[in-house]
């Protein structure tokens, strides 16, 4: 947190540098001495997991860009060239493609953790909004990255999504043509997507820096949802305590990542994307990657194109105002028995939307998607404000230390009994 640095330079060179650019002191305060609530569980390791996923995506992506050709007539085969002829190219490409999925899996868990423990509530609103910005940048990056292999789903996915902008009244068509750089998704579109796909991850990295900065100003939330009051009693230094716990989380998550990349590398992809893009043949079902499916379901649930687009963007934009929609004075769902139920109902709603997004929109699937879309918004607009007013919350512990004592008190008695 802010305040005078606790770092004491130990040698002349460090003293010299510290007087000119206190970068060692800054790093020390941010990642070593930084007080971390001692009651964090493993859901809090997803921040570190996401940092590692971003690094992994940038590293593999930079190597892929060395071998990829951004031209409609060569892109598809250049990806296959990477798969066949580039040393370890198959591994780099499968790590990158599955890395995108793992990145989204981690970010969804990270966001769900924030929702459950009220991590968006004051004073963490800006921290949360920066997170939403990162999420939006991730979506744009992933979408454009999926276009680059120039398969059938790349092409038709790009066509459907860029066409959404044509729903904007009056200027829609002009905007769409401007986005395409022509009158259809074609070589100029592929080239600009490649360029932007390389640019956006560095913008993500910059917003991540702001996100971490904001985190270090307000401090981490924790399962008890109460702030650090006594640094001695409530917190531990970030290193080695949180660092080592984060590393455990990262290593376990990377086992999952490796399973997908090495053993089921095409499970999360679509077989049509192994067919080269063909503007004259439309695939039977155009579906986005799994991580976009809930939003795709919302888009299709609304029986008007413009309405669908508005609701789809609103479903993400509403997260920005969530800190003000939630009126509860208690942060953590641990002490909010009713909210806990609504939280899980919301998770089921999003997973349900994801499933419906993968299905052809016929009959019952359309009705189900409309009900779930309605509930998605009701959860934020109606449930969150009203719960804060009517919910009877459980007593919140006075401090993190009290919460830990209350939890361990029960456990210790149980554990001590057989030993005696």
């Amino acid at each position, binding site marked *: 947190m802010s305040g005078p640095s606790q770092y004491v330079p130990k040698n002349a060179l460090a003293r010299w540098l510290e007087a000119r650019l206190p970068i060692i002191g800054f790093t020390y305060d941010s990642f070593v001495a930084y007080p971390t609530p001692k009651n964090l569980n493993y859901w809090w390791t997803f921040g570190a997991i996401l940092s590692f996923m971003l690094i992994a995506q940038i590293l593999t992506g930079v190597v892929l860009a060395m071998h990829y050709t951004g031209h409609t007539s060569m892109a598809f085969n250049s990806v296959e060239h990477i798969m066949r002829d580039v040393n370890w190219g198959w591994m780099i490409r499968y790590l990158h493609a599955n890395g995108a999925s793992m990145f989204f899996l981690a970010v969804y868990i990270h966001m769900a953790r924030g929702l459950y423990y009220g991590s968006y509530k004051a004073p963490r609103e800006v921290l949360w909004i920066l997170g939403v910005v990162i999420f939006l940048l991730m979506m744009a990056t992933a979408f454009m990255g999926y276009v680059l292999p120039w398969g059938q789903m790349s092409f038709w996915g790009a066509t459907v999504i860029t066409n959404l902008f044509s729903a904007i009244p009056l200027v829609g068509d002009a905007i769409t043509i401007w986005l395409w750089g022509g009158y259809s998704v074609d070589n100029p579109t592929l080239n600009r997507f490649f360029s932007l796909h390389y640019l956006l991850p560095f913008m993500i990295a910059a917003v991540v820096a702001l996100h971490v900065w904001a985190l270090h100003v307000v401090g981490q939330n924790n399962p008890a949802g109460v702030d650090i009051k006594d640094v001695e009693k409530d917190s531990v230094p970030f290193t080695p305590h949180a660092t080592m716990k984060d590393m455990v989380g990262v290593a376990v998550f990377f086992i999952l990542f490796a399973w997908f990349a090495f053993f089921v590398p095409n499970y999360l992809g679509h*077989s049509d994307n192994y067919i080269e893009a063909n503007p004259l043949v439309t695939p039977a079902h155009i579906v986005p990657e799994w991580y976009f499916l809930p939003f795709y379901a919302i888009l299709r649930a609304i029986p008007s194109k413009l309405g669908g687009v508005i609701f789809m963007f609103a479903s993400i934009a509403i997260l920005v105002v969530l800190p003000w929609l939630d009126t509860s004075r208690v942060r953590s769902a641990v002490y909010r028995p009713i909210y806990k139920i609504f939280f899980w109902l919301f998770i089921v709603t999003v997973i349900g939307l994801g499933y419906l997004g993968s299905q052809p929109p016929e009959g019952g699937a359309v009705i189900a998607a409309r009900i779930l879309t309605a509930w998605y918004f009701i959860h934020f607009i109606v449930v969150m404000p009203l719960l804060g007013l009517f919910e009877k919350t459980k007593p919140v512990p006075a401090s993190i230390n009290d919460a830990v004592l209350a939890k361990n008190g029960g456990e210790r008695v149980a554990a001590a009994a057989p030993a005696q």
Partner: protein
Amino acid sequence: MKLKLALFAAALTGAMGMGAPALAADAGHAEVHKQSWSFAGAFGHYDRGQLQRGFKVFREVCANCHSANLLAFRNLAEPGGPQFSEAQAKELAAQYKVKELSDKTGDVEERPARLSDRWPAPFANDIKAREAMGGSLPPDMSVLAKARTYHRPFPLFLIDALPGFSYQEHGVDYIVALLNGYKDEPPAGQKLDAGQSWNDIMPGNRIGMAKPLADGQVDYTDGTPATADQYAKDVAAFMMWLAEPKLEDRKRTGFRVVIFLAVLAGLLYATKRRIWAKIPH
């Protein structure tokens, strides 16, 4: 411009699913069955004999109409594939002619293929291919085994990702079923256009490829039964290798990676426990 926008409107309708049901309703008359593949599972590897037989079927039957533009002769001698000897692959290549711009005369001249050359396509371009095939375009076979699949309903598609149950062979199973899915006559009341055949597996059931395999068509010298069903399996296995030539390397590397990460995670966890041992949390 008008046409393009109309096309995109059609695409969007397709995406919204309004155009799709007709296709979806026709398919699924017959089922694709899971085959037993040597390359399935976490420790899977290709059966060299099967790949060599599959290559024979590909060369003598499929390659008459289908291209495999990403296949180079050198691939046939590389580890993890059919693993012909380099001499065999060279000899094979020499039986094919490729066209090359001569740097002496400036003319396009024919010469015998070398290991570094790609498999020559049967037709000069798609238009020629369609003309010869009665309007149908035989798809390139390079990644076809990964470009085909069939519907796996809930909850099977979730189980397909799990260790121990992992299933990635949708494409080859579909190809075997398709090759065995031909009917001599369409069902009563169904009409076929000229050049079409009835296939129970093909979406829409009308396929431009005539039944390609028959018993005894390709000579097997290793005692394997020379049946259409066996040809279908062997050529599908060959197509899997063609689409995924680094599969063995991938699974072997993956095993090492997972073991490494598991040990690392264990050590990190032990360290973490030690660090936190005296801190109630």
